[in-house]
């Protein structure tokens, strides 16, 4: 779904789902590994404006066509709001943001914010690693990847 002038929708319903492509190399014993994620601002598609399979469509892959080998992960937007403490003992959390792309209206990102005031923060290596681990525990297979 192209953006075509449609507005940003800031709110995510708690039952809304986030989708993301994955490779088989990032599953061990049927569990997603933290090595799947990169920071800052990992990308997702939101279910309010897309279907799971859309995340594999060239419109949401910078025009690239990917063959077999990719699957789709899913996670409730509310579950993706994981948090931890920064080195100065402030609570930091991941927060979904709708960032539409011209050819992928559903495109969204998870921003690291300070819980108290919502300011975006560039996470330290330790905080980033904790987020990768916590996020990996929340995501599950929606469309299995093939070898």
């Amino acid at each position, binding site marked *: 779904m192209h953006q075509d002038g449609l507005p940003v929708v800031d709110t995510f319903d708690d039952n809304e789902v986030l989708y993301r*492509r994955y*490779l088989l*190399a*990032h599953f*061990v*014993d049927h569990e997603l*590994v*933290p*090595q*799947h*994620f*990169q*920071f800052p601002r*990992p*990308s997702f598609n939101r279910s309010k404006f897309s279907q799971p399979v859309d995340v594999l469509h060239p419109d949401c*892959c910078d025009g*690239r066509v*990917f063959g077999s080998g*990719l699957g789709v992960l899913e996670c409730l937007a509310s579950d993706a709001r994981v948090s*931890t403490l920064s080195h100065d003992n402030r609570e930091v959390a991941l927060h979904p943001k709708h960032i539409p792309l011209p050819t992928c209206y559903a495109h969204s990102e998870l921003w690291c914010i300070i819980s108290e005031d919502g300011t975006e923060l560039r996470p330290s*290596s*330790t905080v980033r*690693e*904790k987020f990768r*681990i*916590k996020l990996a*525990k929340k995501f599950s297979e929606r469309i299995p990847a093939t070898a």
Partner: protein
Amino acid sequence: MPTLEVPIEHEEMSAFEAVGRLAEPSSDESRSRLELFDGFIQQAFRTSEFLQIQSRYIQLRGSLTAYSTLSDNWNSYGAEHPSPHTVELTLRLLNTLRHELFLPVRVIPSAEGGVAAYFKADDRVSYLEYRNSGEVILAMYDQDSEPDIRELTENDADESRAIALIREHIRA
């Protein structure tokens, strides 16, 4: 280093006896001897931690070789390919661990750019991730507790420290 022991049942022909009788085999005899040796080898493989470690080491090296050929954007989200240096560091780690009979279950390319050696036993997970940026991250966690993260360096002392911590966490 553990020795390779092949238990010999009293009722069975020993490997040494079988070798002695290989001189003039008929085709049936040779087949049965081959089957006998195949059985010995498979039994040795099942019972030898050393052989299993060697086999896994070969698999992990193969994975590393494959990761060294990845291009940028290999994960479709813009990840850098693992640098040759991170592949070398991971290989150095595998070589050390092979001699300690303690290998990771997998080596995994990281979306942050680099390679991780990933250890898992039941719900206890640990990994040592070498990044293209020069960062070295050790993580230890289980299903419930807050992850324990250590930022290390590439030097030998930190590698030894990481191995000790991983072993302690995984075998706790």
